[in-house]
């Protein structure tokens, strides 16, 4: 399983590209820790520790989720892929044994690739940033445990779900109510709710034992009561492509936009998954800006929001490219550039959600005078960011951006622009309109991107 995991990633990015990922993590952790003292007023140490632990908890949960439900994604990437995790039907091995192996594999693999590099970066910066080395050492243990906690949580919840979705719903409601009660009535902080955080701040053998039990017991229950159902559902829909193509008839690529709309709507989670995966970070930023305003009162909340929204909205392009590979078109009279053009139009349409959010934010905060410059800033930055995304990632940005060799140039083209615009918007929000200057380079990058990916040859041997 370990070898399989390595080969999946190295097939996608090349061994060197994938091996660079942990190094990149070391670098980011190192740089983040090194510069942390400069923004510790805005991000106090305790908040940072909570955020990091929460991230690793979520990472564990998402790894477990992908492993269990990611077959569709794998097949889109590799054709009819069959991982060992799905082989109990054809090999004389029980699902329980496979799940146990899967759990152990993920534990080893992701600790080595995700947790260790982060802690190493932190430890390297510790002497310069005034972080006690002991904190880094403690974090190695607590982040590993956070990751495992997330992993075991996904396993137990998915096991319960397979047996009874109602029981799962009940558990989730009880957990949410318990958390709310603890926070409001017992005045418990996040530290009390996440045992690994408690362990970080108040290490004790008893808490370590409790944390280990919280990982081992749910995992053992998941393995013991695993129930695998191979559902062979057949989904039927009336013909809708022509109708949608007529709606998008203003575009020469109407059929491509119509196909994207159907892909989004009919894939697991429907169009809602785009909205939620986009809306949550946007809401988070909006709330974070309120906090930031306390430290930098001169900041224009709407303009900073428009700048950040411009960059984040480019991730919508990742979603519209998620449902097919160019191999599905390669034997038809169509070029990669044409498919990308269609995806960009779908992106433009979905991005109207961002426009609506920005307008609502402007009207809601009474900053009507800044609405037009905010919209122009958002639109120009969003265009530039998606042009860069297309250039580095083509039709597979969500895969390519995991490759350090691709991600670094992406950051190099986005981050300086972002920081510059944020800074110039502080003295006068109207200065953010300098983002309009990004349109010509955006057009240039996009033209280069279309030529680059049209000339690109699909690996096929």
């Amino acid at each position: 399983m370990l070898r399989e995991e390595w080969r999946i990633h190295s097939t996608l990015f090349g061994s060197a590209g994938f091996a660079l990922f942990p190094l990149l993590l070391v670098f980011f952790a190192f740089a983040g820790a090194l510069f942390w003292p400069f923004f510790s007023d805005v991000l106090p140490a305790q908040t940072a520790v909570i955020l990091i632990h929460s991230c690793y908890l979520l990472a564990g949960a998402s790894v477990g989720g992908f492993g269990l439900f990611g077959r569709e994604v794998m097949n889109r990437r590799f054709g009819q892929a069959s991982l060992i995790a799905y082989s109990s039907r054809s090999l004389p091995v029980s699902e329980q044994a496979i799940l146990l192996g899967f759990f152990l594999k993920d534990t080893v693999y992701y600790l080595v690739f995700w947790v260790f590099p982060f802690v190493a970066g932190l430890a390297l910066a510790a002497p310069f940033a005034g972080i006690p080395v002991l904190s880094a050492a403690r974090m190695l243990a607590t982040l590993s445990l956070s990751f495992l906690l997330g992993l075991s949580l996904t396993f137990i919840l998915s096991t319960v779900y397979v047996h009874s979705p109602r029981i799962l719903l009940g558990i989730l409601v009880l957990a949410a109510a318990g958390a709310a009660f603890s926070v409001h009535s017992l005045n418990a902080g996040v530290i009390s709710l996440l045992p690994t955080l408690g362990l970080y701040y108040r290490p004790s053998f008893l808490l370590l034992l409790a944390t280990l039990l919280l990982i081992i017991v749910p995992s053992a229950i998941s393995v013991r009561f695993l129930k695998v159902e191979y559902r062979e559902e057949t989904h039927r829909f009336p013909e809708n492509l022509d109708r949608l193509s007529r709606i998008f008839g203003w575009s020469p690529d109407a059929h491509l936009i119509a196909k994207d709309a159907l892909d989004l709507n009919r894939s697991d989670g429907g169009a809602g998954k785009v909205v939620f995966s986009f809306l949550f970070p946007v809401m988070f930023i909006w709330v974070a800006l309120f906090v930031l305003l306390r430290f930098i009162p001169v900041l224009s909340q709407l303009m900073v929001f428009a700048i950040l929204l411009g960059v984040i909205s480019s991730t919508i392009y990742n979603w519209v490219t998620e449902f097919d590979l160019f191999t599905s078109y390669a034997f038809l009279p169509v070029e990669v550039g044409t498919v990308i053009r269609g995806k960009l139009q779908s992106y433009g349409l979905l991005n109207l959600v961002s426009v609506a959010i920005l307008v609502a934010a402007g009207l809601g905060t009474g900053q009507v005078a800044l609405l037009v410059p905010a919209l122009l800033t958002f639109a120009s930055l969003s265009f530039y960011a998606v042009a860069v995304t297309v250039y580095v990632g083509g039709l597979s940005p969500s895969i390519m951006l995991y490759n350090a060799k691709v991600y670094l140039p992406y950051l190099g083209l986005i981050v300086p622009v972002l920081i510059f615009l944020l800074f110039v918007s502080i003295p006068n929000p109207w200065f953010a309109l300098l983002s309009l200057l990004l349109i010509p380079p955006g057009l240039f990058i996009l033209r280069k991107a279309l030529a680059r990916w049209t000339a690109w040859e699909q690996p096929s041997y």
Partner: protein
Amino acid sequence: METVIEARGLTRTFGDVTAVNNISLSVRKGELYGLLGPNGSGKTTMIKCLTGQLKLTSGDVRVMGLDAVAQPVRVRELVGITPEQETPPSFLTAEEYLHFVGHIRRIGDTEDQCRFWFELLEFGDKRNVLCKDLSRGTRQKLMVAQAFLHRPGLVLIDEPLINLDPIMQRKIKDYLTGYVKGGGTVFLSTHILEIAEEICTRVGIIHQGRIIREGPVSELRSGSKHLEEVFLEAVRGDSHA
């Protein structure tokens, strides 16, 4: 007779591997040409090179009078291709997929064509089913149908019958024979020799990226030999050479 495929010195390498090695062949209008070869012999690479899906390492290819390297999209407009492995997009239904191809190929009578193919290949009951939920056989029928949707003069088919039952195999073989009689041309790659023996007018045997035997089926089968014997002799002889 008009030549629809003309390859000269066609070579394609992938790193150290030479998948197609200096192949020259021509296919004339109205032929049903079979490219026969064991697994991994270069059949699929050959079709991809002929249709501009892959660039050539060296050599040149003209298809329907066009340079397949310089005008790959134009070539794919004129021909139909049934790939071996690629499947239709997951979240379109079978009918929507044919309409999608109809839009790309700018076909005016897609609806009539859909009706014809659903009836001929007997999968009209699956027209509203998402492609991802179709069986392999039904997906293959769909991929065959999309290749003929625009009534091309030349169709290149990679392993056309591999997932189909004998009844459907018969239907497709009959259709291909009739299509060629009607003036069309088929370039078919397969390792199922019975298909080639039954319907091909001329075959080439490809092994390790090279054409090792070529000619009309009747000529290759000198005496009472089956094509299988000819094939095995050629491939084994080449392996020992």
